[in-house]
């Protein structure tokens, strides 16, 4: 069985994978990181969003071996020493999560957006989550959470 070596949430990780494994399944089933969710299975809803070298990707259609040597960030990599990342805290404070299933993907998309554009307009925020579906919230409180996160992170001198 081939092995996949990547820098996962800041740590070097090596794991045995099947050649045809998709990144989402490796994260969930082989590495126990269940925060990345599978919803549509065809990269069309964003629930499985993780970052690869800082870019948001749909991990349910991303071949695991493609991540060889790359930096992969999942929702589990957001909190530091147990403390919520400002984006996560903003989601809590803005009452954004309802059922919560889309939320890890939304947060990862928000991170990708704010890392590249720390002061996005509302329209840019919407573009940034245009690949993430939510059935519970109507999106408004998620947009507000990202606005709040941007405000707070800018106040501290930039994205964390």
């Amino acid at each position, binding site marked *: 069985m081939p092995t996949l070596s990547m820098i996962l949430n800041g740590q070097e990780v090596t794991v045995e994978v099947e050649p045809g494994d998709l990144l989402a399944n490796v994260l*969930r089933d082989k590495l126990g*990181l*269940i*925060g*990345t*969710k*599978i*919803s*549509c*299975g*065809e990269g*069309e*809803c964003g*629930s499985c969003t993780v970052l690869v070298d800082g870019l948001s990707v749909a991990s349910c259609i991303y071949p695991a071996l493609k991540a060889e040597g790359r930096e992969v960030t*999942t*929702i*589990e990599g*957001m*909190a530091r020493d147990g403390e*919520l990342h400002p984006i*996560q*805290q903003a*989601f*809590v*404070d*803005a*009452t954004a*999560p*309802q*059922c*919560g*299933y*889309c*939320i*890890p993907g939304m*947060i990862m998309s928000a991170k990708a957006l704010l890392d590249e554009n720390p002061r996005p307009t509302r329209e840019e925020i*919407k*573009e940034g*989550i*245009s690949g*993430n*579906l*939510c*059935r*519970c*919230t*109507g*999106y*408004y*409180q*998620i*947009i507000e959470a990202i606005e709040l996160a941007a405000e707070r992170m800018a106040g501290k001198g930039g994205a964390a």
Partner: protein
Amino acid sequence: MSTRVLGKSVPKKDAATKVRGSRKFPQDFDMDGQLHAKVVWSEYAHARVLKIDTAQAEALPGVVKVITAGDVPVNEYGIIIPDQPVLVGERDKVRGLGDRIVIVVAESEKVAEEARRLVQVEYEPLPVVSDPREAMKPDAPLVHDELGDSNVFRHIKIRKGDWEKGFAEADVVVESYYATPYVEHVYMQPDAGIGYIDDQDRVTVISSAQWPDHDLRQIAPMLDLPKEQIREIVPAIGGAFGGREDMHVQHLLALCAYCVRRPVKMVFDRSEVMITTGKRHPWYVKYRTGATNDGKLTAVEIEIISESGGYASTSAPVIEAGTSFSAGPYVVPNAKVDAYAVYTNNAVTMAMRGFGTTQSAFIYEMQMSKLAEALDMDPVELRMKNLFRDGSIGLTGHAMPQGVGIRETLRESAVAAGWKEKQGHWIRPDLGPASAPHKQRGIAVACGLKNVGYSFGSDDRATVGVELALDYSGEIERVTVLSGACDVGMGVQTVLAQMAAEALGVEYKQVRVSMVDTAKVPDSGSCSASRMVWISGNALLGACQEALGKRDEILMAETGETLVRAEHQFRGLSVRETTPYDLETGMSVPHFSYGYASQIALVEVDTETGETEILKFWAAQDVGKAVHPEMVRGQSAGGVHMGVGYALTEEYIQQEGMAKTTHLSDYCIPTVMDMPREFFSITVEVPDPTGPFGAKGVGEMTTLPTAPAIISAIHDAVGVWIDEFPATAERVWWAMQKK
């Protein structure tokens, strides 16, 4: 009344684990030694199963068992009537693509997947009935030949006053034919779970569900076991919207665990969810409304044909609820209504947000919009002339109970949207110029009302327990709320925690709400009918009162006990009576309590392509008491999201019972870019004296006025009525061509 915790948008109890991604949904669980199961689904919408050959599948290395109909102790179930087979055996019929033939249980998901492809099934196709209007005809193929000689299994009649006279007195009569579409819940978390035998020999299921106790009451007879030997744990639910009221995996997981005595995990992929799980009932409606020139409704005549798919599920209560609201929140003195629930071979229809009242809201509000046009009267004004007040007589002859906030919701949303009121007349706002020469603007309003709690004499009840941990001086240190209320995402656990904190005089952070585990918490009934806040909240307050009483006794007696437990059952019938439909007249006191909503859509229609964009949207909901204002706003936006999809983009397409939209990419729920550019949520509080702290419910009513508001606004913009929706660009375009 000033409150400490109530009315504050506190951090939700489940928010932290959800933003961390650590909150486990059913598919996130794994157990040592677990097996994996996959279902072999029916390939036909209507067929007799001649032969099932499992030999090849069973021979595949890693396959542990192929469960067939013969392995099921009692091979039937159903949320109300047991008309569904768990597994379809040889010589039995499949009635839709959601029927199951066998379940393959294997060492890995991969092997199970491979094995299910090796199961060979021989079918004898039967004639498919795919239109309920055809299914009602005497010579139509019967979906359930064992149940009777008609596909119609429920007929509700309302005969109120003298409708012929009412129509004779009308100056204007609007007659329309409507067809509402099949739509899908699209909860983001696909159905999944694990079944196992726990250390007390109980058949246990970890899954998402809306009514665990009811699941047990279907699983127990299926396995021919006492209810106490079945257990269900609901760790988290990734959305439901009614779609998890019926069981999709729970009974299958129980059956697997029962058969193999090992943990068995099952996860549906999105296509399985889309093809096999329940959808919203389509309605085919003929609607006549009569009114006088000064805008008073005189009569309605309505025929509703509601499509059930292959199994009854909750089709009867859906048609009961929907019919009771079919004339809307308006005083209508004369009415003739006939509503039918009809079997077909299309996808099974089940509960979905609104439960028949959503379809009702579409038809009665489109009628009101058309009436306003026919009378050349402002749409707000026309509605104000007819809307309910406290004590108004409803369609089934009952008086509306205190707390009717519909007028307040219409007034507040209309004023927010720019309407002006002058001496009882309402004047619409100026919409400003369209953003391009080929676009036209339109604005429209719609109202809706929804029952809170179960209806028609149903003994709706919930039991909630509280545990108080006291410190040495008798002060409450910690509170645990023990409730079977399933949090589908709307935040009921947070609401219960807030209410407990308020009632017990403690801090919100001192209260925790237990996970739903039928072995450990009492039955709070279903998370549906927008009932959880009202009914579980009332039960909780009763339990808190009792707990405080017990605590006082302990202090007085100085026993030194530090744990207080109390449980209280609240019955809806104890505060308000409801009665079933009279078989001939349809008269009844249908519901305990009601929630009210009004919404306004400002749209721009592209006259060349037919595309509709929603520029602004106002949603006003009367919730009695907003326990958590931001959560109410979230329900408002979420309900509107479903309504936007219903109105404009969502179509579940079938041909002769075969699903054509089988992937999420085929079925368009609104993305963030499809939502109204500006959204205003207005919360109105007209208390229900029987509700906990005056609260009603909110979960469903926020989706009722959305589609009619948008589709009426399209008419306001380009002058076409869309009676069969979604109002996709192409439908609007055709309507404009035909004008």
